[in-house]
């Protein structure tokens, strides 16, 4: 079974804790709850980090030592505009529009736009926010992995893992260069004064291709493929300021 939850959550968690601990005491105290929810539209910036394994443990090509690895390891920067309603609307507390740059060392891939709605539950010290939405864009190429294995008789084996491209990103290139997928999100939010502090996890529900190739010494090709829906989580920590 794939084990997408085998993630290192240490770095963003440490960052989130650091943010909370460094808040002044008077800032940490939430404004008194009134009958209406505190409304506002915030500009948020943050970092995100996801890391894990996509590949099966049992496959045509799986072996003990990964030459190139099948892990993905992404550090991202994000920018969002998030609006909190004064009153719930259709059971929703607000919506969010965002942009995330996955993989900061390469400029071309890893540009994702997102739109989501959320409902928050105010627990006085902070609010728990549950959200869902869609991400669309050019995915990071960190999810495209190939691991090779040569065996002693000259047979070449390799497994290629990739996101199933299912959308077009216009004005960029080919017709199957983009991806769109749903996600769910759980986070903790504090909104003292004009500030917003948020940390949580977003889980993309993404379809992946797994292709196993085997080429015999005589050139005979054997190809096995499958598609799987995987949960790809990443942690994030945001800081925001109320615009209006």
């Amino acid at each position, binding site marked *: 079974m794939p084990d997408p939850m085998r993630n290192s959550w240490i770095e963003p968690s440490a960052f989130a804790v650091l943010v909370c601990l460094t808040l002044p005491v008077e800032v940490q105290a939430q404004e008194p709850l009134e009958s209406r929810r*505190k*409304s*506002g*539209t915030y*500009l*948020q*910036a943050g970092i995100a980090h996801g890391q894990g394994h996509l590949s099966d443990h049992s496959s045509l090509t799986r072996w003990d030592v990964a*030459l*190139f690895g099948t892990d993905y390891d992404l550090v991202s*920067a*994000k*920018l969002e505009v998030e*609006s*909190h*309603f*004064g*009153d719930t609307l259709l059971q929703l507390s*607000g919506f969010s529009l965002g*942009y995330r*740059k996955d993989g*900061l*060392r*390469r*400029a*071309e*891939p890893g540009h994702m736009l997102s739109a989501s709605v959320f409902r928050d539950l105010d627990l006085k010290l902070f609010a728990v926010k549950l959200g869902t939405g869609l991400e669309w864009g*050019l995915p990071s*190429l960190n999810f*495209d*992995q*190939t691991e*090779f294995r040569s065996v002693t008789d000259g047979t070449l084996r*390799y497994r*290629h893992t*990739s*996101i199933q*491209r299912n959308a077009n990103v216009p004005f*960029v*290139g*080919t*017709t*199957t*260069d*983009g991806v769109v997928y749903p996600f769910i999100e759980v986070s903790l939010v504090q909104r003292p004064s*004009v500030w917003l502090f948020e940390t949580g996890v977003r889980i993309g529900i993404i379809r992946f*291709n797994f*292709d196993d*190739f085997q*080429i015999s010494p005589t*050139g*005979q*090709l054997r*190809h096995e*493929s499958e598609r799987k829906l995987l949960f790809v989580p990443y942690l994030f920590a945001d*800081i*925001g*300021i*109320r*615009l*209006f």
Partner: protein
Amino acid sequence: MAAATCDESGFGTAFGRLFQLPAHRRSLVASLLLWTVVACDDPSPLTPSDILLNPRLASEVLSQWSPHVGIHLTGEAQAAYQDAVSALQAAGRLRSVRLEIRRSLSSADPTYRAISGTGIEILGLISNEFLFSPNIEQEIDQIFAAFPEIRHFQIGNEVTTILPNSGPTITIGQYMVLFRRVYDHVQSRHPGRAKLLTQSIYGSGLHGPEELQSMVNMGLMDLDPQHVIIAINIYDLGHAGQYTGILGGSLRGFRVWVTESGIRNPDLHASWVREEYPRIRNLLRAERVYWYVMWGEDSGPDTDFSLIKNPRNAPDYWKSPLFKLLTGTE
């Protein structure tokens, strides 16, 4: 501060309010915006001395190297080629070479014999000039007969971009008709004789992915992946991600060879292998990456891709830092 509800504010009003914020709030907003404009810098390339002086970096280059090199057949380099191929072979860094089969090339050509005599596997690039033959099937028969040791043949190279306008040119649609004819002929008259590689797609910018998409639309995916390998030249990985949708979709079952890759600066050859070869493999699932080129003349646009130069001085020809690293000569 009085909080505004979301439904009170239209976009124009909201945008206007952004500029009405106090100066310190505007600074904070600007800082948050700036946060997203983080440096997207590519990793700094390593110099030859960085690599040669660091066993770990040298080991990484060697582990990423793909033992395949393109060679321009020319008589003046015969002795140097023979020496360079043997040195790379002896070091375990060369398994196959890509050679262009021109109409003028005979299987008795001394340079060809010198290279094939080393026992190295050969990928035969059937020159673009054959694409304009009225009977390409007959040409294929003759090439197969003349070069029985070659088991992989590539039908053309960068056919829509490399041919000079002064001579005949070919569109990708015309090429696909021709490739289909060659494919059908080989399967019917020479079954099992050879694998065919498509023409190499030009390796920079969006042209390559768009051309591969066109080839798919014109029937490439209808051919049997047992007998056809997709060939790509790649010098710029900026748009390599554009291939992934096609290779993971219509061409999912096909093998991929990168038939040319490299960088025009000998000081960056090793860095290219270390940084870009793994990306090429990961993105394109390329089984092979052919370095371009063993010798690209001593002057001109291809010279600084060369692993060796001044072949007339063999055995004291110039060797690039990457060549020295691969052969363990320095």
